[in-house]
């Protein structure tokens, strides 16, 4: 390492000098060049580091993507021309990582059965099945063992209940050992020709030791010895046996055979499945389930309709209130505007999930502030009745969302030239006409895109629903875990992460549907707002 460091450092200096010479020959702006080299060097160092990490994990696909991207980036920034590419590249790369990757991965998952019981590869499922099918032979003794290495094979040196020592390995069943040294407690600890592994040796060979199965005798019905701590071994019999050649799992007691029938789990002729299974490609079955399954279609449509209602009403109500307040505050005759304005922005300054929790307390039927104090002790089931819960969600979202609309409307109003409304006033227009015909259209040009993004945000407003009602009140009559205030994204969350029947594949299919709905609505919205722009 030391040698390594010193010799290239001289080489490095030479290289640097060379680089400097090249740079100064071609351009006078060495500083810019240096900054560029340093920045690119950092990028290259980072990708080289990740390349090594990926190579170590054997993740060749991502490795090649990283290397290719790095080469392209270097090529783009060392080129003289291609200014546009230089501006766009960082943004494009982040777009690739944060948007396209997530979308592609969700799409991929949507076509699999990834979920409870199907969450890894077949190989891992087999090893898990074998691992959990080991049954301790009832009434069998626990054996003190030492692990000894004879030649190249590991052996269990077992002290039998009567004190004699036996030895065995994975290949050779337990048999008497010619001579063994015993410790004070009478446990056989070593035998000639073999070296005993210390605890530290065991730790460095844990996998090897814990996966050892030493047959008790030549008869496999007697079971095998297995150790979990390297000091005691117990007798086990395996309930399942995997036949790799025929790709079948066999129950050693009932002789039932389980086949890989293409459903992602070993399945018997009678249809019973072993779990865990593994992840398989299921084609469009998740999407088909969303639209055709009787029990899913109903709740899905109900949730879809409410999600659209929720986002449209939220955008409309927050915009109207925000704009109204902005108009009032835009009037220069009003006193103390700065104070009011900062108070109005407060809801925007609190984290939304915290506000939602506070509102949950305020809306409590028997003990909440709203029913108890503001409404003098009435029992309004704000969060218990399906219809009221929807209204409560909309009210809370109005409270959370209007400051944003207030801020953007305020900015937009101030950017409208004063002389326009003054001119209109001279022409005899009244205040309402000025607002409707001049201010509002001009306002919409700059605000329409924000309304669209606000729609998209509310469409996926998970925080509010999860914290305020958790989708409730639950409809006791459906078979799905869906409540009357659940929006699509909170329903997706429940499908993927709640209960014991988690289905990431189905949840991803739902996410894709959400993506399509939001994308279509946004596209239409942006087109409409562009035509607005052309009007003006």
């Amino acid at each position: 390492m030391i040698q390594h460091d010193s010799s290239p450092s001289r080489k490095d200096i030479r290289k640097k000098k060379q680089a400097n010479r090249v740079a100064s020959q071609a351009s006078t702006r060495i500083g810019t060049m240096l900054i560029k080299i340093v920045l690119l060097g950092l990028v290259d160092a980072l990708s080289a580091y990740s390349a090594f990490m990926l190579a170590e994990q054997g993740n060749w696909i991502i490795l090649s993507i990283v290397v290719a991207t790095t080469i392209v980036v270097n090529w783009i920034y060392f080129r003289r021309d291609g200014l546009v590419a230089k501006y766009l590249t960082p943004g494009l790369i982040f777009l690739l990582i944060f948007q396209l990757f997530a979308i592609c991965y969700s799409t991929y998952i949507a076509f699999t059965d990834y979920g409870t019981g199907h969450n890894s590869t077949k190989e891992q499922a087999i090893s898990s099945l074998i691992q959990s099918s080991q049954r301790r032979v009832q009434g069998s003794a626990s054996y003190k063992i030492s692990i000894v290495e004879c030649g190249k094979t590991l052996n269990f040196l077992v002290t039998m209940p009567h004190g004699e020592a036996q030895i065995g390995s994975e290949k050779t069943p337990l048999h008497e050992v010619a001579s063994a040294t015993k410790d004070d407690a009478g446990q056989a600890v070593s035998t000639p020709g073999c070296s005993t592994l210390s605890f530290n040796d065991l730790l460095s060979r844990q996998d090897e030791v814990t996966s050892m199965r030493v047959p008790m005798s030549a008869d496999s019905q007697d079971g095998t010895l297995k150790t979990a701590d390297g000091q005691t071994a117990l007798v086990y019999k395996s309930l399942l046996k995997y036949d790799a050649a025929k790709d079948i799992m066999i129950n050693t007691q009932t002789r039932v055979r389980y086949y890989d029938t293409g459903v992602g789990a070993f399945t018997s002729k009678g249809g019973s499945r072993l779990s865990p299974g593994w992840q398989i490609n299921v084609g469009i079955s998740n999407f088909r389930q969303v639209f055709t399954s009787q029990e899913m279609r109903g709740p899905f449509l109900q949730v879809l309709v409410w999600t659209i209602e929720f986002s449209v009403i939220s955008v409309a109500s927050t915009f109207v209130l925000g704009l109204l307040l902005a108009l009032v505050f835009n009037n220069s005759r009003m006193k103390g505007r700065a104070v009011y304005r900062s108070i109005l922005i407060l809801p925007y300054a609190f984290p939304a999930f915290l506000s939602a929790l506070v509102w949950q307390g305020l809306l409590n039927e028997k003990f909440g502030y709203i029913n108890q104090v503001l409404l003098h002790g009435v029992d309004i089931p704000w969060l218990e009745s399906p219809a009221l819960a929807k209204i409560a969600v909309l009210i809370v979202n109005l409270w959370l969302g209007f400051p944003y609309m207030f801020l953007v409307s305020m900015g937009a109003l101030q950017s409208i030239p004063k002389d326009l409304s003054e001119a209109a006033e001279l022409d005899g227009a009244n205040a309402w006409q000025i607002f409707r015909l001049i201010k509002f259209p001009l306002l919409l040009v700059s605000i329409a895109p924000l309304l669209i993004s606000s729609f998209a945000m509310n469409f996926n407003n998970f925080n509010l629903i999860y914290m305020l009602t958790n989708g409730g009140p639950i409809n006791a009559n459906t078979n799905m875990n869906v409540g009357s205030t659940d929006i699509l994204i909170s329903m997706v969350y429940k499908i993927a992460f709640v209960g014991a029947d988690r289905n990431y594949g189905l949840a991803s299919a739902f996410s894709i549907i959400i993506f399509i709905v939001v994308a279509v609505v946004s596209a239409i919205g942006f087109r409409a707002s562009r035509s607005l722009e052309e009007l003006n």
Partner: protein
Amino acid sequence: MAVFSKRSIVAAAAMTSAMLVALTGCGSTGASNTNASVSAGSSTITVWADADHTATLKSVAAEFTKKTGVKVKLVQKDMGSIEQDMITQIPAGKGPDVAIGPNDWTGLLATDGVIQPIELGNMKSAYQKVAIDAFNYNGNIYGLPYSVENVALIRNTQLAPNAPSSWDDMATTATAAKTKYPYLLQVGSQGDSYTMYPVQTSFGSFVFGQNSDGSYNAKKLTVGDANGLAFAKWVQTQAKAGNLSTSMTADIALSKFEQGQSPYIITGPWNISAIQKAGIKIAVDPIPSAGGQAAKPFVGVNGFFLSAKSKNKLAATNFLTTYIGSEKVQQALFKSGGVPSALTKAYNAEAQSDSVIQGFKKAGENGVPMPNITQMSSVWQYLNAAEVSIINNQGDSSTLWNNMADSIKSSIAKQS
């Protein structure tokens, strides 16, 4: 121009390769370092634990490292995220070697193949039977238990000097003490059939039938029987009388009890220190029967799981069985979490000097282990929803209860 750009590429390439060389150097020394340390006997096990237990585990880990040379990487995680993170990370070869969690995760984690059985051998008998049963899934023990908890009736001894002889006796005492509520039983907007389960069982209503070895039989769903309907009717009557309400969240119930608004609350050992801090003198009693039979609370057990993909199984098993399973550590975990130990010896020592623990022990004596089968999650979902709608008087109690039983049945049929 072209000449420059070519040369600059050469220069950059030279620099990049120099950096690569340097990194390779670092990388390889790093690797050889770990190799060296492994052969010197210091591999690392990763342990996931929640905030309540990391402090205690830190000192356990330090002792373990000192004795065995195995390093312990303690990762503090939110209890709510441990289960899901195990399911997603362990198959990818990441995640912990050992993770803390309640026994009701066992079924799901085993179904996903992310945990492996822990062989306790003859040490099994050192633990309370219910603690071992709770981690028994398909005949394997999947967790090393450290604490056992159940709900009981907590009594404010100033308002009610004697334990109630029956459920209705609580109302009599409360009237005499002039408190607002005869008893406090949390429900919340999402329902809480866990806390209400002892009342349900006192009507003879159980969720599943049990096999002869004490494990639950998902095929024997008994929740919809006549006893269940009797319980449903009782719930509706109590709700109409104002004793049960979905507004009564866990926090509100606790604060009402602390304010002395009721002589009784049904809750678990996790709330005891808060109640005592509020200056309330308490006694812990078994829950009186509302339906004529013994009230059997769920006994939940907390423990540590072993990852199916652990590369340090030997060290991890050693850490669990000899350290977490020791009397000293179990008692230390009790002190930090407030929930009594699973190891019988430690438990007896804790109960000896503590009447509260004795009270919980008595209340849990005829308790039933918290089911760990995956089907239980459908039960929670529908049972909670049904109790909420009965309490909110959204229909006839029998109809709602029967709907719930049907929903559970069809949801379980779908799963298997």
